[in-house]
């Protein structure tokens, strides 16, 4: 059996207690949410925390609720719950799409939305749709609570702006504008999710009253050290008819923005080619959903 090294284990029952343990523990402290990354990294030796703080005894950190102006998703909400939530499907279609292709069903039952953000994998399935939906994370730290866009949290592979004593407590996803549609697609080695993304793409499109694209957001996974916003691709769509020509221009711009590595999953050049194909596909879905929403 792959055994875990010894560590000091804590199950605080309040955020204040958790933050206190983290602040005292320093760099050796790690938060345990779903465990699908931390426990794996501890088994492989990639992480050797001296202190593990299990967040699951703290009440109020899990669940999805409608709030003024959007939905609030507790940081410990499992990915399977996102996938099954009618609220998420209705308010954040790209997030529901992404949840449905993250790893396998049993892993989705454990993995959490907050853990997915905090892990900051370049291949994150949830980062791109959350950025497309302009999601805002609530973060609790020693100096109290603050809010940051999910987009601003990513620094590099496995790295965020969060300090060791910071805890993501919830994610707010605002109600989309009228005429908005979003979608997420991912390509891995096998169909139907399961594998880590070779490339993932989320897109959100807002159609104006005149039927033209008023605004678009496009974010890619696995093609840069962090989820990558393809701003040139977004600009290629703004103000245009939602035509195949516009989609092709945005797809080309998205591919041009990629700066992937080659690894065991895919070569850099293959990722760039996939990014273009996937961006076009996901834009067509997002536009179709935006048209539905405009009716």
């Amino acid at each position: 059996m792959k055994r875990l090294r010894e560590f000091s284990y804590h199950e605080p029952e309040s955020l204040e207690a958790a933050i206190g343990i983290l602040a005292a523990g320093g760099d050796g402290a790690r938060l345990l949410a779903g465990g699908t990354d931390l426990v794996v990294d501890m088994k492989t030796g990639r992480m050797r925390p001296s202190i593990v703080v299990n967040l699951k005894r703290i009440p109020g950190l899990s669940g999805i609720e409608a709030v003024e102006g959007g939905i609030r998703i507790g940081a410990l909400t499992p990915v399977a719950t996102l996938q099954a939530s009618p609220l998420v499907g209705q308010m954040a279609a790209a997030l529901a799409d992404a949840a449905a292709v993250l790893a396998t069903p049993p892993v989705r039952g454990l993995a959490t939305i907050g853990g997915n953000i905090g892990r900051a994998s370049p291949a994150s399935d949830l980062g791109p749709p959350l950025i497309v939906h302009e999601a805002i994370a609530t973060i609790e730290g020693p100096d109290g609570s603050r809010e940051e866009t999910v987009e601003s949290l990513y620094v590099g592979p496995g790295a965020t702006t969060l300090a060791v004593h910071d805890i993501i407590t919830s994610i707010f996803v605002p109600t989309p504008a009228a005429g908005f549609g979003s979608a997420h697609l991912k390509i891995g080695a096998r169909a139907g999710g399961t594998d880590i993304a070779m490339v993932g793409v989320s897109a959100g499109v807002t159609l104006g009253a005149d039927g033209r694209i008023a605004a678009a957001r496009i974010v890619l996974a696995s093609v840069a050290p962090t989820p990558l916003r393809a701003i040139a691709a977004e600009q290629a769509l703004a103000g245009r008819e939602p035509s195949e020509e516009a989609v092709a221009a945005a797809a080309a711009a998205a591919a041009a923005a990629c700066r992937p590595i080659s690894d065991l999953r895919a070569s850099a050049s293959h990722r760039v080619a996939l990014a273009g194909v996937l961006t076009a596909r996901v834009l067509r879905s997002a536009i179709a959903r935006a048209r539905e929403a405009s009716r």
Partner: protein
Amino acid sequence: MRLTATVNGRARTFEVEARSTLLEVIRESLLLTGAKEACGVGECGNCMVLLDGEPTPSCLVLAPDAEGREIVTVEGLAPEGALDEVQAAFLEAGAFQCGFCTPGMVITAGALLRDQPNAAAGEIKQALAGVLCRCGSYTKVMKAMEKLAGRGA
């Protein structure tokens, strides 16, 4: 630390280390060896147990997270020695070769059929995507599952 949980219908209390995984507790403290360790990192599903009814890779769960919860292992599917419906269908279809993945397969398959008794082929494949069989018994697993879902002979 002390862990109290229901295992295969029986309330159990025992000493665990916080760094033990649920799989280690099940295999080494409870001596229930149906759940297997293969990859140890949540990819293969051979360690699958039901945790509060949901298929869960027990190699990724720290023992303290099982506190107060209901655990069912493959041994709990047939407490009286008679095979349950899924096990019987697997046996009839020959849905295994070496049998190492079978506990994870039947645990996961049973949970799917409980929730979706007439699951479509695609739904079955999705639900079982988290359990790997290196013998490649998938075709016969699908044969057993199709029958259980009310299709085929």
